[in-house]
């Protein structure tokens, strides 16, 4: 696994793999610190790259969940609510056109 961090290519990783590598890399880095041995540069760089990628994947996942939730809410709206939404949209666009 350390070899994967050394030759890191985040484009090929799935999120669970990235999390696993981050855990292994972080634990290894801690060991270096504990024994007061200088860690290799690629280890810290790799961990940082993985963190960026994990945060990116998490934000993407949240965006997806939000979009899914909005889509599902739409299906529960009554005809009356949908009409009100459409009328509000008409009013908004009319106001913009009059600017």
């Amino acid at each position, binding site marked *: 696994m350390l070899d994967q961090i050394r030759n890191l290519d985040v484009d090929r990783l799935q999120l669970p793999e990235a999390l696993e590598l981050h855990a292994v890399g972080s634990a290894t880095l801690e060991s270096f610190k504990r024994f007061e041995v200088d860690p290799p540069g690629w280890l810290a760089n790799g961990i940082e790259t993985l963190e960026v990628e994990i945060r990116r994947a998490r934000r993407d*996942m949240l965006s997806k969940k939000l979009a899914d939730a*909005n*889509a599902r809410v*739409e*299906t529960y709206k009554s005809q009356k609510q949908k009409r009100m939404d459409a009328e509000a949209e008409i009013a908004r666009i009319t106001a913009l056109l009059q600017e």
Partner: protein
Amino acid sequence: MEQGIGRREVIAELTRSPHGDFAAYLPVGQRAARDDGEFLAHLIAWNHKNGQIRDSKTALPVVTLGVSSFNGELRESSLAHLAQLSPRDLVKAYRFAPQAGPARNAVRKLVRRYLREREADESRWEYAAVAHRSSMKTLYAATRTRPAAFADLILFKRQYPSGSLFEAVANLGALDDVGAAGMILKRKVPFLVAKGALGARMKSEPLLLALIQRMSPTELATNARFLQKAGMETSPALRAAFEEAMEKATTSKKATLKTTKAAKATTGKMQKKLRALQERQIDANAIKGNWLVLGDRSWSMDKSIAISREVSATLARYCEGAVRLVFFDTTPRALDVSGKTYEEILDLTKRIVPNGGTSIGCGLQWALDRKFEADGIAVVSDGGENNPPSFASVYEKYCRQFDSEPPVYFWKVEGDPDHLTPSMVAAGHDLQALDLCGKTPDQYSIPNMAQAMRASRYSLIDEIMETPLLRLSDVFKAA
């Protein structure tokens, strides 16, 4: 039929995959049903779970129904496997049945039971009918099965009950993008059905998001290029949906070949992700051991050279160990192709042209001299040895040297008379023949056949025989 060789021949026919030509399964299928019915029944079960070629899952069970000696639990297992097909494939089975002998009545009775089973669960029936409307109509009409009242209204009179899945699909076009996306997710509308209902609108982000979540692993691979062009990589939500879908596709055995094609069709990060997915899928189907591929490059062996490249490329992809490709005429020309792609192998071997005499043994002698211990050997040739050393003589020395007997798979192409097989038999050695004489394997056949090779002579056969047969009660739950 001698057990070892006969069963291999059946497997080879199965993996040869003549696309769309069910009748091509008749000769070997009928013979196998008569001579080794138990093996064929287990092979049908194994193929249903592990096979990548859909035609064989439809054709083989039908072929067995036309053989009178294939009876009892074996026959029941064939029927049960047919009952697991989609409506579309079941239509194909019904249309093929007359060619298989007296099989049509059995298939007709099965179709009726299949339709009644689905009618007993309206939501299950509805889902099948939405995804396969035309096939479901054909099944009712062709077998003269009177549909249940609700089925008749929906399929034949197009009257959709309020709140039904049919009504939801019919109204998709009238909803805005977000509303349509929500409906697709809520009602689990199949991808192809939603795509048909939405047309060009499906490129909008909310709809793409919903559709990605409805795609099977195969559909994901097939539509990868379209998704990339639609801007999937620039949208966080679409990226997340795609990555989630790819995680699910990792364990898919069915999508491996499609993933390979998709990876070639895409670029950049998407291509990297697909190649990584391909490797994970391959890991799930890895072939064990080191392999030696001996490719005949003697006079007129163009086909052998082409097939050798494909076989070695497949092994290089799927093999856990090392792969050596040795082209031979009367001298060997060896290459280490471990981990190489087909394109890389093509480039390395572009100057290999057919010429010279034939000494299959010189290829194996190379491996012996280099102490390359192969767990399996594939020989692609017409078998027309006309120069020493003979393969059989070197094989004896090879087995003594490494104290093992690696299985030999003989991919036989047309050409000179085959001396390899009789010499191996005379020396008391087994040879697994894959007969390609007069046949042109397509792009799926060779990887399929190569993946069926095993480093242990009978491990695939053991795997097949251990696959349990099905009973109709396993498939039909309704009374």
